[in-house]
């Protein structure tokens, strides 16, 4: 196949997938419009009504206050998850006797639905920011733990041999082997974890935190302003799409995982 032909086929494939995606969105909008005509605006407001509310929200300060609050909850919880999950994962990965002690706890935490934690935190902390931060930390922490244990225990021993034979210094060994391996194993986990953190934080804000996007969603619901509820959902979708940006970043940071097609 000539290089030009390959480029044309690639462009056509991209066009096809884009058109399919846009077509699905258009279909969904059409269904939404049809539904809004069948039901009252309290149940299902029309897309244009939601668009008007969304446009007005984008000009209001409370949108940015809410996004800041949720971002703070997510970051605080995520950093806690990284610190605790990462440290424990490192210890468990390096010390085999620690792993059987911590793994059952991690499994139990991974299997606990975030909403169950929220019920507990409302008892422990009342209503406040701590609910969101704690729930994010306890949901994402076990994922980080498992990811770090996996990263530490799956360093390829044959590559360790290579670094020993070629007498790489500890610094070079870290740069050439441990760090790239750690990043390659952890980055996908962190990208998924961050997306989860957003959703968990917003969920806990709906029920137990007075600030953030979730709290705004709850207020709109209490006011039976379904158009505003849906506008906030659109904003949330737009924010969670940043995990797609992180996936793109992941492809840039880990290009060798994306490289395809053997030559020779």
């Amino acid at each position, binding site marked *: 196949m000539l290089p030009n032909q390959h480029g044309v086929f690639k462009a056509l494939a991209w066009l096809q997938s884009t058109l399919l995606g846009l077509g699905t969105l258009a279909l969904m909008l059409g269904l939404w419009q049809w539904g809004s005509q069948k039901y009252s605006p309290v149940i299902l407001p029309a897309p244009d009504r939601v668009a008007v509310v969304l446009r007005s929200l984008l000009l209001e300060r409370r949108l940015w206050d809410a996004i800041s609050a949720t971002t703070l909850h997510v970051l605080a919880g995520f950093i806690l998850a990284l610190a605790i999950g990462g440290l424990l994962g490192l210890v468990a990965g390096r010390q085999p006797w620690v792993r059987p002690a911590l793994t059952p706890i991690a499994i139990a935490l991974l299997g606990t639905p975030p909403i169950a934690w929220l019920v507990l935190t409302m008892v422990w902390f009342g209503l406040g920011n701590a609910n969101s931060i704690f729930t994010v930390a306890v949901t994402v922490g076990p994922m980080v733990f498992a990811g770090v244990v996996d990263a530490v225990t799956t360093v390829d021993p*044959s*590559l360790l*041999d*290579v670094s*020993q*034979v*070629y*007498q*790489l*210094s500890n610094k*070079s060994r870290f740069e*050439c*082997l441990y760090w*790239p*391996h750690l990043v*390659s194993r952890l980055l996908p986990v962190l990208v998924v974890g961050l997306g989860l953190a957003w959703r968990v934080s917003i969920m806990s804000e709906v029920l137990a935190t007075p600030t953030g996007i979730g709290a705004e969603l709850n207020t709109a619901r209490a006011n039976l302003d379904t158009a505003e509820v849906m506008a906030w959902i659109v904003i949330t979708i737009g924010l969670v799409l940043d995990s797609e940006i992180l996936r793109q970043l992941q492809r840039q940071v*880990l*290009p*060798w995982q994306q*490289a*395809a*097609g*053997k*030559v*020779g």
Partner: protein
Amino acid sequence: MAHLLNNIHHYYGSRLILEAIYLKAEPGEIVGLMGPSGCGKTTLLNIMAGLLLPTTGAVHTIPMGLAYVFQEPRLFPWYTVVENIALGLKTQDISRQQRLQQAHQLATTVGLAEAVSLYPSQLSGGMQQRVNLARAFAINPQLLLLDEPFSSLDMGTRQQLQQLVTTWIQQHQSTAILVTHDLAEAVTMADRLLVLSQSPARIVCRWRNQRPVDQRDPAYIYQTLAELQTLPDVAASFNLKSVSLSNQSLKF
């Protein structure tokens, strides 16, 4: 004398694997190491490379650079071809640019000039093994260990890489220890051949190639192959049926 193994004994648990191994090698020499599967050839190489401590015995090395061409390429998946080749140069006091420049030249030497920016996952087995070789050449080692480096390659690629190694050893007057299952490969490349017995491995046969490397034509190689297989120790080591040469033909 680039390297010396002196009375090596090695156990795995209570099982004796290597028994009374003595090995010397000269600069510019390729020493072939053959033996049945599982007899301990790779263990011997790992001992020489410092990856394994022998149970008893002395490993005398002169720290003039050692490189190991493993049976599997063992390339770093996150590094491109040129970065993998330049790996061993990190211990040298040269800049990254110089490292990559030298690696580029070596990539050309091993026939990978067009593939320098590819990742290992994009390379065929033969190309990966070329990178493995180039990585070893990059540090200009005094001792080159090769553990069945060409066993999974097609004949054409194998011949090319064999030629690369023999030429490089001659040009740089390094020493190579070549583990191979292929007697023809051993006769083609090795100046001396050591044959190990079945476990516990002892050196049961020491053979010296009668011709220099550039005079080992196919006729000589096949004649020598046949002769080697008639040696009782070689036949016993590989459980070969008794073979005798009569009027230039083989009988089983």
